[in-house]
């Protein structure tokens, strides 16, 4: 499978790195020789230096043989033109574009039906607001993924230092807590991903990934000593495009929202566009202002300015002043692992959200959704079990799945089944699979290999 990526910035680089590790043929195009050098020095992909919207460059990259072209530069215009040119040269190639301007919001469907026929438009700001929305409901969750239209949730949380589960074997969790334990798919301990068996023990401070049905999430969380709280009051620091989007969403949900913005003129714009939310002119790290606005009563503080250092400081400060929970926006993906060390567990990044969104569209076969976890060491994906696929019609224990693969749930007609060895997957079932990076190419094959005969 050949994928062309236009743009070797943070988003392009990470997508390329992800795909190259899965034995896909990747060509990266960028106009900046330094960005190109960074890619060619670090990744096993082909690089071409030049403009991604130039038809000659696209042809040189082998567009005609490519299954997917993803235009992810920082410029909406370049991305659009790249897709347009691609549409002319090779209409069969699937096109993905990263487009950020609000002005295009209404036209996503138009672009799909008319030229340039972009199959998927990814707006990192929309994606990141979606992520914040999901994180907000579960305090302490590092990752929240939804599958099967929200029927199944995939959650990553840190165990408290004083958890009663410290040293408990997975098989004994139900006995210790007196509650039905959810299926634990993975544990991250000291930056390493472990796929546990029943005999493995939990430790305080572990990052635990589990799968749960949406309506049983409350119980599942209580097993780990956490609970879902209803969000009533939210403070947003930073009234940029993401802040505005989030505030509008919260307004719709009738959540009491305050938004702090440093720039007076931007505040006027915000006040015009928002109806119920309170727009405050000031600095998000100004303690006087925060105290005046009753920071101690806030359920969540979301820091969304363009400056990640400001966000980190504001989050730490508000947490200290009594805010129950904080969500911090950062830009550099390499900061992610550091955040939990300084006590900020809920972290978002528009780029990370965009990468996840794009990856799930690149997946082969009938994969409906996919999220990557823990520096891309593993992925959870949702797929439709095809009639012709090898996993259908046999009890799970008789299917030889590759190592590092776990079928975490089967969804049959809106009903979620937690599978055992005896469960049989039927055609058209939707399944949620956890797979380590090494197993991804194999699992993709299992899900899709027979598809190619059609």
């Amino acid at each position: 499978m050949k994928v062309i990526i236009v743009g070797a910035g943070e988003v392009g680089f990470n997508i390329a790195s992800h795909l190259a590790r899965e034995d896909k043929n990747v060509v990266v195009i960028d106009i900046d020789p330094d960005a190109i050098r960074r890619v060619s020095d670090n990744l096993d992909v082909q690089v071409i230096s030049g403009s991604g919207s130039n038809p000659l460059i696209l042809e040189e990259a082998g567009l005609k043989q490519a299954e997917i072209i993803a235009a992810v530069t920082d410029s909406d215009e370049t991305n659009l033109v790249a897709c347009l040119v691609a549409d002319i040269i090779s209409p069969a190639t699937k096109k993905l574009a990263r487009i950020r301007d609000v002005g295009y919001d209404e036209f996503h469907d138009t672009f799909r039906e008319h030229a340039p026929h972009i199959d998927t438009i990814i707006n990192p700001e929309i994606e990141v607001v979606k992520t914040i929305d999901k994180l907000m409901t579960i305090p302490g969750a590092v990752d929240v993924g939804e599958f099967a239209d929200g029927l199944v949730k995939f959650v990553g949380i840190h165990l408290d230092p004083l958890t009663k589960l410290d040293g408990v074997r997975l098989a004994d969790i139900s006995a210790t807590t007196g509650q039905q334990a959810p299926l634990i798919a993975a544990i991250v301990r000291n930056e390493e991903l472990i796929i546990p068996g029943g005999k493995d023990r939990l430790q305080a401070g572990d990052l635990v990934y589990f799968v749960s049905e949406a309506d049983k999430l409350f119980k599942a969380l209580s097993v780990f000593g956490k609970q879902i709280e209803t969000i009533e009051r939210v403070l947003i620091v930073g009234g940029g495009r993401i802040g505005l989007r989030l505030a509008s969403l919260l307004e719709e949900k009738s959540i009491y929202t305050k938004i702090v913005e440093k720039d007076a003129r931007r505040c006027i714009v915000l006040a015009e566009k928002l109806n119920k939310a309170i727009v405050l002119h000031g600095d998000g790290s100004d303690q006087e202002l925060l105290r005046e606005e009753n920071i101690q009563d806030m359920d969540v503080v979301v820091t969304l300015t363009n400056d990640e250092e400001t966000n980190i400081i504001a989050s730490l400060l508000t947490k200290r002043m009594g805010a129950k929970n904080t969500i911090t926006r950062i830009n550099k993906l390499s900061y992610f692992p550091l955040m939990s060390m300084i006590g900020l567990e809920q972290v978002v990044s528009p780029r990370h959200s965009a990468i996840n969104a794009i990856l799930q569209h690149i997946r082969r076969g009938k994969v409906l959704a996919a999220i990557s976890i823990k520096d891309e060491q593993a992925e959870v994906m949702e797929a439709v079990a095809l009639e012709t696929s090898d996993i259908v019609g046999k009890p799970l224990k008789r299917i030889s799945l590759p190592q590092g693969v776990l079928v975490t749930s089967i969804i049959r007609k809106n009903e979620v089944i937690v599978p055992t060895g005896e469960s049989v997957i039927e055609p058209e079932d939707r399944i949620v699979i956890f797979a380590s990076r090494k197993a991804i190419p194999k699992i993709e094959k299992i899900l899709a290999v027979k598809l190619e005969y059609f």
Partner: protein
Amino acid sequence: MRWRLIFNIVGILTLFLGISMIFPLLFGFHFKDQSIAPLLKSMGITVAAGLLLYLAFRRAEVDFISHREGMAIVTIGWTVVGFFGALPFYLSGEFGPFVDCFFESVSGFTTTGSSILTNIEAVSKGLLFWRSFIQWLGGMGIIVLSVAILPFLGVGGMQLYKAEVPSPVPDKLKPRIRETALVLWKVYALISLAEVIMLMVGGMSLYDSLCHTFTTMPTGGFSTKNASIAHYDSVYFDGVIIFFMLLAGINFSLHYQFLRGKTLVFWRDSECRFFLGAVFFLIVVVTINIYGSVYETIGQALRYAAFQVVSIVTTTGYATADYEMWPAMSQLILLLCMFLGASGGSTGGGMKCIRVMLYLKYCYKELFILIHPRAVQHIKIGGESVPEDVVRSVLGFMGLYIGLFVISSVLLAGMGVDIVTSVAAVAATIGNIGPGLGLVGPTDNFAQMPYMGKWLLIWCMLLGRLEIYTVIILLVPEFWRK
């Protein structure tokens, strides 16, 4: 530096080399000569050593190899492979003391073609086949070959590939390094097959055709005959071998594009034009120079001039004439050809045309700037600007190349070798050509070089084959600092 990883991969290379000894063994069995025992023993030792290294330094899965580790693996790998490649020669006793065997083996792998054998035809056929075969392996690169056929080198393959093929402007033909390596080897094998057929059509035996192909395509130059290609004294063989030497001296990614139907690539590529133009020009000059003084007819002069020039400029090192009997000018031209070398991305050695071109353009630019002090000018190759850092690295390369050449030839002269021989022997080994001038001319060999001189030349051959930087970097203390 993760030594486990380095030795583990070197172990894989060694194992791989051991297994490839099966091919000369087949010929040994076919001819039923005395090469069977030494080959079997060497194969056993090499496979065992490879397995031992591999198993003793088993590693967790590695998802990257650093730039430094890549260079260490390649240099250590080549040295170790040279050592084990020398075993069959040593165990047979037909090649003399160990230093001679090691010299012959490294000369093989680096596609130099300098030999210490005084009577080649007396050596058993299995060993002669091995001698040719290691040139073929070394030509496109043992690391490139392992990247192509051993999947578990994975991502790390890229760093290794860069360390072994440090061409100034890297071509990646396919998105994945493994496929790129595979494609290059396929092209290499395909052209080799064509040469075998052409030689057999001319009446050479299968064994000799294979041996000569295995030393033409990597621009190696080992022959199975004492008199090299002159043994056959055939215009047909001269022609075929000139043609394939030229092919081997051209960038293999051009061959790949040509095979994919882009017929004009050779003409469009400015380096290829430069290379072919230089070859043509030098042939004309040498022909005029030797016509009348050495050869009676223009045809003969052209035939011998063409073969010798192509053989030296592509760094192959075959001979059909004793050019030491030629006028001084022709000899000097051949000596300078040793520095020019073939194209980047080919199997040839020397400084490479692309670097010489860049260097000439750089010199012109300097002059131009003197005339127009405020001019903004880029150095361009084939219409595209060459990045500053590439130019800088090329200048550094030229400096190191000349510097190492000077130091090595002075050292060799210090061991009591005469001036012409020292200069030519170092130029011929660092450029991976083979025969030089004086005592190491086309009709002589390296057997009477002093003991330390042989070690010095072995070092020169490795330097030349891995294009200086990868080897010399190991001598820089900063490299070893943690």
